[in-house]
């Protein structure tokens, strides 16, 4: 890389900025799309279970049984509706009208008043296992609340187990999803940007002209990447604003650390885009390859939805060569847990390594010589 000249790289970067400013589509894509997607997905992707239709059969109909139902209702997780027989409750589950049913037999109130062990039946639709799991997770809290309301002492567990969720005490899934979503969108856009801009130069023949000047490949790469790093950072900034003030996602860690990780991730993705464009040399093909290589692995194998730890061994190792997997850890770690550089040493090192690898690949692939 001898003879790298900052002036020439800057000339390429300046020209690239002009292209971006002239093309509102690019600006909207990078600055607007992530924000729009985060807003959409922030509302739609909600793993928290709320407002579930609950069929309630209350044969007891005492003060205590009514208190029990009101505990379920006031939790916000359930919308109780009365049914007149256990069979009707089951029919309601069959038809999908109810997601769960609560059956209170006569004698419940008497047991509560008499200090016995009151019993109720709770039926959950197990079709959607994650929903069912979530519902079951709510139950101990609800029954505990009901017992306290009755003035009864909560029967002591043989092993007192108090669970506390750190960092995200309410297990608000948005806190988990939004930083992850940002990773995926930013990664995809970065790949797409450089893939298209370099492929365009091949396609309209201007790359040939650039190479006929003293311009070095490294200068072209640097000049092409630099403006997009800036643009991507602006996009990330807006996404974080929306996450924080729109969805209340906390930002607990160091801004500087997050910035560093973002720059590494953007560089890696932008380099990947350059490799794609050099290989394809056509915008159409570059676009398709970017979509596939930028979206699929990051969506499925980055730990965005499916935890990397629970993947089969092959995929678990495979994820190690994916930059979004490492940045996912960094983004979530820094924003939600407030993790520091020492905590994230491994993902940071891995990301830096991948970044160096992809930059080198982009440079190597970028041959000085044109083939006809």
């Amino acid at each position, binding site marked *: 890389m001898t003879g790298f000249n900052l002036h020439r790289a*800057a000339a390429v970067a300046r020209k690239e900025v002009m292209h971006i400013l002239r093309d509102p589509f690019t600006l909207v894509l990078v600055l607007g799309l992530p924000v729009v997607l985060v807003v959409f997905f922030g509302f739609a992707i909600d793993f928290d279970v709320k407002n579930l239709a609950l069929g309630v059969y209350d044969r007891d109909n005492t003060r205590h049984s009514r208190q029990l139902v009101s505990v379920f209702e006031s939790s916000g997780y359930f919308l109780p509706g009365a049914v007149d027989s256990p069979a009707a409750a089951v029919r309601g589950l069959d038809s999908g009208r109810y997601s769960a049913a609560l059956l209170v037999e006569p004698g419940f109130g008497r047991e509560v008043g008499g200090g016995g062990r009151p019993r109720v039946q709770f039926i959950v639709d197990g079709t959607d296992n994650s929903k069912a799991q979530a519902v079951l997770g709510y139950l101990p809290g609800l029954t505990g609340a009901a017992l306290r309301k009755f003035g009864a002492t909560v029967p002591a567990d043989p092993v007192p187990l108090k669970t506390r969720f750190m960092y995200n005490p309410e297990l608000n899934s948005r806190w988990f999803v939004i930083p992850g979503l940002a990773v995926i969108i930013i990664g995809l856009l970065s790949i797409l940007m450089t893939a298209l801009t370099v492929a365009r130069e091949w396609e309209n023949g201007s790359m040939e002209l650039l190479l006929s*000047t003293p311009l070095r490949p490294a200068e072209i790469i640097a000049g092409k990447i630099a403006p997009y790093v800036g643009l991507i950072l602006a996009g990330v900034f807006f996404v974080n604003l929306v996450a924080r003030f729109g969805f209340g996602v906390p930002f607990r860690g160091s801004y500087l650390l997050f910035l560093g990780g973002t720059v590494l991730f953007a560089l890696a993705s932008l380099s990947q885009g350059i490799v794609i464009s050099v290989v394809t040399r056509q915008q159409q093909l570059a676009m398709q390859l970017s979509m596939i290589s930028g979206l699929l692995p990051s969506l499925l194998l980055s730990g965005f939805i499916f935890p990397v730890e629970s993947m089969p061994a092959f995929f678990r190792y495979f994820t190690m060569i994916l930059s979004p997997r490492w940045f996912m850890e960094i983004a979530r770690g820094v924003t939600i847990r407030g993790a520091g550089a020492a905590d994230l040493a491994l993902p940071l090192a891995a990301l830096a390594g991948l970044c160096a690898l992809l930059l080198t690949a982009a440079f190597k692939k970028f041959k000085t010589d044109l083939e006809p």
Partner: protein
Amino acid sequence: MTAAPALEVKGLSIKFGDFTAVDDVSFTVERGEIFGFLGANGAGKTTTIRMLCGLLVPTSGSATVGGLDFSDGGKGIKGKVGYMSQKFTLYTDLTVGENLDFAAGLRKLEPAYAMRRRKELFELIAFDSPLSTMVSSLPGGVKQELSLAAAMLHDPEIVFLDEPTAGVSPASRARFWALIRKVTALGKTVIVTTHYMDEAEQCGRIALMRTGKLIALGSPDELKASAFPGPMAELDFNGPAPEGFLESLKKNQGLLELSPQGMRWHAAFRDKAAMDAALSSLPAAAARTLIKPSLEDVFIRLVEGIER
């Protein structure tokens, strides 16, 4: 320094796999020449130019450009040449000024020098629209002229133009050729490729290329003289040519070339005596006119001579 020829090419060849795109080409171009490459698409004109600009590495052979060779990876040469490619003119989504600033940035030109050059070149190409004009709004011919200005911003000694007039109107083509002559009047060497015969006529010397080989080299007149040492006649039968006469003419030993030109025929002969003998039996209704062969005749003769 100026003693070295603009181009000195020896045995230049390039292969892409089994395909030999340029095959053992040698020639020399003096400074201040307009040197043309004439040939069909795929004849190797563009590939030759690309090698000389340092965009392709030849498989064998050597070349010096502006007295420099490629031992430094073409760095020195890239400073001495300006290249205008076939496809690309200027970035259409940028303004004239931005395009030229970019060209200046690539060559690391001092802003003051770039501005002076820009002025000189605008005068040369008679461009007087504002710098803020979007390139996309300019007519094709003007884009081509501006593209030449961008390629010459760093004041190169040698300018390579790869089919500079492809796709522009005949009037713009004429204007562009006037511009090329102005550029050589400034002492520059212009290497140009074309497949227009009328453009080739305007070159000082022409290299005729076919399937990667240089099949003829010389000034238009030299090429004509070597291809057609004898006279050429245009035969006009004022109607369909009598088959019997044409058949006997084709068998005539004195005939070099007989080719149809629309309704007329061009017949070239070994010498004047051969022509008089061959045309003695010309039907009375037919007219013959002595003509100068065109480059197209030369092209047909040389190219088809190889194919026969």
